């Protein structure tokens, strides 16, 4: 019940936050130099006043700013993200076409980085002070310091160009028309490099956090209690330390998972991954306001969604939360 109520109030807050984001970004984007009508006209290879006026009218740009804003916000409240004149389709449809690719990429990267990060963090903490621990922590620092796009370029160079093991880019083999399992495998093959390069940085983050958290928890009194019971080192780590140590890691990860959705621009660009990050970036150059705003709202909604999921998970895992407040 408490959880349910907490989620409800979170959702209520979320709606307000989303509206605020819509309004803020609306202001931001409209402050930007560059008029979508001029851009579109420009791209047509020729433009005259008649054409630009037509376009402005069609985009609603001829109306006063507050009318545009009002209409937009009114639309948002009815789950209408507007129409992309550049792409010639409703923004929600546009985003829905692209969102699955982004979700596949980011969720894969997320789970890989979280799983590997925790696993390596636990391994490092179990060998604290030894050479293997130093090696792992140094590697993590290195991943942490490596620009993601640079790692991506290098990975393509090695694994696609030199070794030819993996496709360099794209979502699936174009025109192969695979179905069923074959298609899944095909997508998985394309997913390896982008998911790894995207996940590398976060893996380093989670590993370092897990390690630190494990070491901190291992000093707590209840660990001593567990030892005094006669439990073995592995059982203590698994049953007592790990469970307590990964809570903060999972929380942070949950907060970041949402951010990943909107933050995969670089990866999507380098690997030609047809997701919403790239859609946003490309729409930006075209001043396709509705699409950019739509991506912002959807990815902010993702952030909120993941926060709520994290919260629920946390409430399930940690019995103290629900009762405390």
């Amino acid at each position, binding site marked *: 019940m408490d959880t349910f*109520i907490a989620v*409800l*109030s979170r959702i*209520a807050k979320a709606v307000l936050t989303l509206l605020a984001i819509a309004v803020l970004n609306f202001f931001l984007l409209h402050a930007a130099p560059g008029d979508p009508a001029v851009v579109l006209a420009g791209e047509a290879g020729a433009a005259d006043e008649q054409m630009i006026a037509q376009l402005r009218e069609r985009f609603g740009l001829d109306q006063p700013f507050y009318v545009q804003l009002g209409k937009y916000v009114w639309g948002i409240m009815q789950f209408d993200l507007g129409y992309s004149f550049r792409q010639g389709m409703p923004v929600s449809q546009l985003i829905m076409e692209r969102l699955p690719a982004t979700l596949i990429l980011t969720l894969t990267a997320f789970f890989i980085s979280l799983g590997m990060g925790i696993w390596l963090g636990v391994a490092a903490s179990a060998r604290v002070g030894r050479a293997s621990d130093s090696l792992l922590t140094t590697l993590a620092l290195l991943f942490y310091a490596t620009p993601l796009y640079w790692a991506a370029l290098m990975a393509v160079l090695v694994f696609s160009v030199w070794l030819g093991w993996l496709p360099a880019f794209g979502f699936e083999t174009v025109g192969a028309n695979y179905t069923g399992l074959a298609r899944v495998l095909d997508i998985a093959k394309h997913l390896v490099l982008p998911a790894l390069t995207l996940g590398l940085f976060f893996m380093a983050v989670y590993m370092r956090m897990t390690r630190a958290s494990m070491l901190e928890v291992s000093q*707590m*009194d*209840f660990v*001593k*209690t*567990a*030892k*005094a*019971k*006669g*439990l*073995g080192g592995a*059982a203590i780590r698994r*049953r*007592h330390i790990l*469970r*307590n140590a990964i809570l903060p890691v999972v929380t942070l990860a949950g907060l970041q998972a949402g951010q990943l959705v909107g933050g995969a621009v670089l990866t999507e660009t380098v690997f030609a991954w047809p997701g919403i990050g790239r859609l946003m970036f490309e729409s930006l150059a075209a001043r396709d306001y509705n699409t950019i705003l739509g991506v912002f709202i959807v990815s902010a909604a993702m952030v909120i969604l993941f926060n709520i999921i994290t919260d629920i998970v946390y409430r399930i*895992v*940690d*019995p*103290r939360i629900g*009762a*405390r*407040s």
Partner: protein
Amino acid sequence: MSTLVIDHLSIGLPEGADRPLAVEDVSMAIEMGQILCVVGESGSGKSMTANALMGLLPPGVTVEAGKAVFNGQNVLDLPESRKQALRGAEIAMIFQEPMTALNPLMRIGDQIAEVFAAHDRFTPSERREKALHLIREVGLPDPEKIIRAYPFQLSGGQRQRAMIAMALALEPKLLIADEPTTALDVTTQAQILKLILDLRDRRGMAVMFITHDFGVVAEIADQVIVMREGKVVERGVAADVLGNPQHDYTRRLLDAIPTGKLPAARAPRDVPALEIKGLRKIYRTGGGLFKPVREVRAVDDVSLTVARGEVLGLVGESGSGKSTLGRTAVRLVTPDGGQVMVGGTDLAALSDEELRRERHKVQMVFQDPYASLNPRQRIMGALTDGPITKGVPKARAQERARELLEIVGLGAEAASRYPHEFSGGQRQRIGIARALAMDPELIIADEAVSALDVSIQAQVLDLLRDLRERFDLSILFITHDLRVAAQLCDRIAVMQKGRLVEIGTVHDIFLAPQQDYTRQLLAAVPGAGWSQESAGA
């Protein structure tokens, strides 16, 4: 027959520690069915000895010499797997902090059952049965519910009982209890001590009981070992050591214990320094969009007076509202109702700005010597910030600060140093000097000696007694420890659940308590019988 014999044990500390050996050449023996109390102040090496037996020494700390024979084998150089098999099954241990000693994410029942699992005993359903049985044995209510509860749902005393249940699970021959009651309220402490005594009688196991409190020793010990800086200074049968201490240190420790010897009552003057009338403070929690508000009446219609030159003791267990009352009296907490009259001004009614000008009238000495001084500020700053704000010229304030540091026994040169250069007792002295620097009409001392070792505690109490004479101080002395209150105070007020239960002179409270709760408190004081004996002697 000795269950455990420790023979010339020495434990080395890592390089850079304040001394090379944590424990030096310690020998002791515990007989079956006996309770051996290891007594000492912090840093005496008493816990290290216990940890060494359990193989729980922190990294860097090693056994340098000696052996500990248990069951005919030296447990100190057993391979890790054998030690592991011993832990929990043959030797069990309970710890000081019941709040942190249980895994917060595991149900109590699972944590108990885990002991069986660790030693591969019984089937899961049997383990549950056994756990239920143990929970019943340590006197926890509603075992079926407790077994499914998480630690946070239990009180401190209940958690300690759960810990004991865990320790007893495999009927160990030796129970090591490391300050198991220190973090508990007196009444709870008394119950736990009784439980341990009962279990010892019923099961006939040996108990190594580590404590700093001679009151507790008096309550349960058969044998006593007194340790100081890693060495055993005195040993013997409990009654002998308590009644006829041989070693100087033991004697000093025993002397330092507030014995409950009642000082001569002073006639209170009827000029009030502080008058509290109908004070109320209610804490509200929850109250979100959909949540009901929960109210806790921390201070519930309390009225009392502290006369000029009087020390009034305010005694109660945790959660009784005594600290809230103190903080309300200085208006660190704004009351929901009532008056706090100091020198004719109602502090409770002042606006923030007016209050700031009146602040100097009431000052406070805090509990935690480590948190009550700003680590990034020199002592001089701490002592002069207030007076200067109050309008005292800077030079005058600094002169006074140096003077006060001399008075509290630190020396004027302490002014230019930082807090971390001082020990806990010294910091409490600084805290007292800081309060005095404001020339207050009233000082509120909130558990001002509770965090200190007994011998230090005695010194600080002496200082307070001394200052009180010298400056004719009015003090509201808040403490959970009746014995401490008895030493310093003229009158004592007892609080329970936000209400004032009883107020009276020290003699009246100790010798003729009117209320049940007061009587309970008095009865629960460890070593009460013994100390009254000695008081009579």
